Structures are given as C-alpha cells and as structure tokens.
C-alpha cells in the first residue's frame, strides 16, 4: 500500500546550482517522513490548467522537515518550476515509486551520468558507505557531491573520458548494490561494461514520460526482458538491470 498523498507544499528556498539547473526545496513533513531514496514526486509546474500533466522529479535529498528537488530546465514544465519563489505553494504528490532496493548496512557503488546523479544525495545519506562515480559532459554538468570520482567528456573536471572508464572490476566486486542513474545511452554503456557475474547486483533508475505517476494510466511502460512492460511509476522507477529489455527500451527514445 502506497503512502503517497497530495500535498500543498511551500517553497523554502531556490538555488541555481549550475547553468540551467535549479534546486527547489519544499517544506513537507508528510513526504519527508515517508520517502525512501530513489522515490520521486509528481509536481504541478503552475496553477494554470496547462500543462495538463504534472512533472516527475526524483527526491534529491531530505531536509529537516521537507525535501529538495534538483532539475534540469529542459521545457515548459521545468521552466515554470524554475520560476518558483520562496513562499510559493505547489501541489506535490508523493512519495511515489519503488526506490532503490538497499539492504541494511550495504556497501553501494553509485554510477551517475550528468544530472541523472540528482537523486544520489538521498541515497548516499541513507547508506553506510557509498563509492560515487560520475561522468558528465563538462564542468557545467557536474553536480557537487561530497566525495566522488568525476570524469568529463571535455576534461574540464577530472580526467577526460566517459564514466565507464571509472568502472573497475574491484569496485564492482566490492559492492553489495550497484546503482545506476543517468541518460539511457549512458546507462546502456555502463551495463555493457559490467561483466555478467556482477549484473545481478545492478539496479537501474529508469525514466519515462508520465501521465499520472501513480499507476492508473499505463503511460509509463518500460519494456521488460520477460516480454511486455512494467510501469515506471509504481513498479519502478528502479528496476534490476537484468529485468529490462535494453534493446526495446532504447528504441523507445523518450
């Protein structure tokens, strides 16, 4: 049974983290008290009737009595969200989705691509130890985490290269859980370099265009290897990499 409820949340602070990347914090103990890492919320970008759907955003981090969202401004919805000001009220449904399957006292390897790493902070805050590998196109796409290994495509931060170059057999072997989040192409590349024997530990945070976000519209299907689809919003967004039909998923585009 889901604990999701629909809340009127007050914006407590807004911060431009990187160019075109905004962090908005909300006061909402209803969500923060029940959320788990990897879960997301459905937020109304504005009070206007358009857009007709909400926007799904991963819970980046919990604050004392609320949570932070960190997002890329890519279209109308996120543009409207970026205009939010402290004191504004937004309607937020959450927490939604399944989250990472993290055993207690686990040792995590986190592999993130660009803004895909947005939700890692919550995960890092929740586990005993986390090794974080981040790949980004360049300086302006690197979300700051405490301790992490970073590579960039243009070499502006860390070594020049792709995040796959940071993935070592040692890291894979040591991890209880391997959590991957980022653009589909990046996640596919990471999946590609992970040897068969470690794949069972790999969890993938998927994305899909969403209608409802709470399981009723069947609009957010992720193709599964066993055939058919599963719902990103309620059965995901986190799936085991072994469950996903990578080929059909890539064909979907987004």
């Amino acid at each position, binding site marked *: *049974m*889901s604990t*999701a*409820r*629909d809340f009127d949340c007050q914006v407590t602070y807004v911060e431009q983290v990187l160019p075109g990347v905004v962090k908005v914090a909300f006061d909402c103990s209803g969500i923060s008290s029940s959320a788990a890492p990897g879960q997301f919320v459905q937020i*109304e970008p504005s009070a206007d*009737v*358009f*857009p*007709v*759907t*909400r926007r799904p955003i991963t819970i980046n981090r919990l604050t004392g009595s609320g949570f932070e969202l960190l997002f890329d401004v890519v279209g*109308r919805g996120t543009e409207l969200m970026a205009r939010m000001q402290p004191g504004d009220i937004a309607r937020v*449904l959450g927490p939604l989705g399944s989250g990472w399957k993290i055993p207690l006292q686990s040792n995590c390897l986190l592999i993130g691509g660009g803004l895909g790493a947005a939700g890692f902070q919550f995960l890092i805050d929740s586990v005993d130890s986390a090794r974080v590998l981040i790949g980004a196109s360049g300086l302006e796409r690197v979300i700051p985490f405490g301790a992490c290994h970073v590579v960039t495509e243009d070499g502006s931060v860390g070594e020049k290269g792709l995040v796959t170059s940071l993935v070592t057999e040692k890291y894979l072997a040591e991890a209880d859980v391997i959590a991957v989040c980022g653009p589909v192409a990046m996640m596919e590349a990471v999946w590609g370099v992970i040897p068969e024997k470690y794949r069972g530990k790999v969890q993938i945070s998927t994305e*899909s*265009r*969403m*209608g*409802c976000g*709470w*399981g*009723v*519209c*069947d*609009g*957010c*299907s*992720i*193709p599964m290897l066993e*055939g*058919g*689809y599963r719902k990103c919003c*309620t059965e995901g967004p986190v799936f085991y990499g072994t469950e996903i039909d990578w080929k*059909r*998923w890539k*064909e*979907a*585009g*987004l």
Partner: protein
Amino acid sequence: MSFPPSVSRNFWGRDFDSPIMLASGTSGFGEELLDLQCLAGVGAVVTKAVSFQPRAGNPPPRLLETPFGLLNSIGLANPGVHHVLKHILPVAAGLPCPLLINVAGESVEEFADVVRVLEKSSAHIGYEINVSCPNVADGGAAFGVDPEVVLQVSRGVSRVTNRPFSVKLTPNGGDMVLSAKAAVKGGASAVTVCNTFLGMHMDWKTGKSVIKRKVAGYTSPALLPLVVARVWQVANAVSVPVISSGGVSTGEDVLQLLAAGATMVQVGTRLMRRPFAAAELMDEMKKLAGE
C-alpha cells in the same frame, strides 16, 4: 429538465450523489484509487479496457504532451479477461462506489466473449463497450463508425448479459447520432459520448511522429465545446441516458454537460493533474449553485 441542473442523478435505476465517473483508462482497475483514497465525490468508476487475450499494449513512448493537451497511445494494455476476473475484480469489489467494466474487442464476437466471462463476477454493475477499437476484420477502422456494426456489437452483448451497458462511441468518422441509435436498437442502456479524438504531433525536424503508431488519442480541456455539441446532439436523438466523456476540467464544465443532456459525466485527463478531481469538481459545482 430543470436548470441549473442538479448534481444528484438517477442512472440505471440507482441514485447517485455525484454525476462524476472516472473515465476508462485513467483510473486503472480501482486498486490505486483505494490506495490514494481519492474516491470522494466519485459517482462511479470505469475500469480500463479489458480484452479477451492479454494485451501488452503499444511500444513506448505512449504519452506525449502538447502545449494544450495530451496524446495517448496506450494500445489497450491489459492482462486479459481471465486474469481480470480472477485477480483484479476481487480487489475492485472493495470500491465504495459502483464499477463499470470497459470492454474492448478486435472482432464483433470478442465483445460478447469478454462480457460472458465477466458475468461470473458481481463486482460491477454494468459495462461500457468500447467500439472505438480498430475492427481488425474491417481493415482497422473503428467499429463505431459503422452503425450496422455497432448494432451487431450491441446485440451480441445484450444476448449474454442482463446487466445494463453503455456503448462508447467514437468521434472519428461516421455519424455519431446514427451509431447511438444503432447501439440503442441493439439493446444498449446508455451511450458514452465519446472516446478520444484522433490527434498527432509531428517532429518537423525529422518528419517523424514521436508516437510509434503515428496517430494517437488526443484529450484537452479545450475540446469541451466539441463534446458539449455531440452530447447535445445525441441526447436529443436517443431515449437512453448519455454519459459524457471528454474535456472536463472545472465544475462549470460538468454543469454545461449536464445542461446539454448528459446524465453522468466522465473525467479522465484531469486526473493526471488532479487525482482528487472528483471532489474538487463537486466543490466547485456547489459553489456555483450557491451563487
């Protein structure tokens, strides 16, 4: 009819405090509604479409939002009637309001076949027969565009059930008034006006449609006047109740549809923004009535 219209309705011999039905495909099978506790103000729930065989549905992306509406290409994904009967309806039976089951088919016979299986359940009060599905034998045109085929489907269903059923018409071709009359002639106890309007979004940079099936179902609050017109036309032509479907985003929209002749009013896409839309619409209507 008296104006302004009352929100209390009598439909299929039952009294309803609310005219609002949650539209097929936008409320699953009821399980999530129970979870989220968003059933206040809901008169009745219509399940997503049930077909005989399980259907995986269309490849993603299945949704695409346009500036003023939503395109959907779900493809009637559902686990098939036997699974629904065994595993889903027992849960849906826990809903605090009446349930209608939306029925899909690829042939005239399939509709009746699905209903025949569902007759074993007592979770639902009746059916909504979705004749907007593509008729495979007829090259994929919707059943609903041909009154003769609508008559056959409706007759087929009325032969296998004593429960009331509504035939959900399509606005994409044909003459809805003729199809409505055919549905009633075949035994339908209501008609639903109407399913989604065909729409498309073109990526002009590539000449490709983002949605793999190219055309999709389009919904938007801006379509309300199209639905009001069609409800009014059909309500003036048939004697059975008309259930409206489409375009509702405010309480005033619901009142317009009731005034145009709808007995019950479905809300679908609005649930994507507002899971508690039914309660909100009822509140808005009460405020308007008090004015």
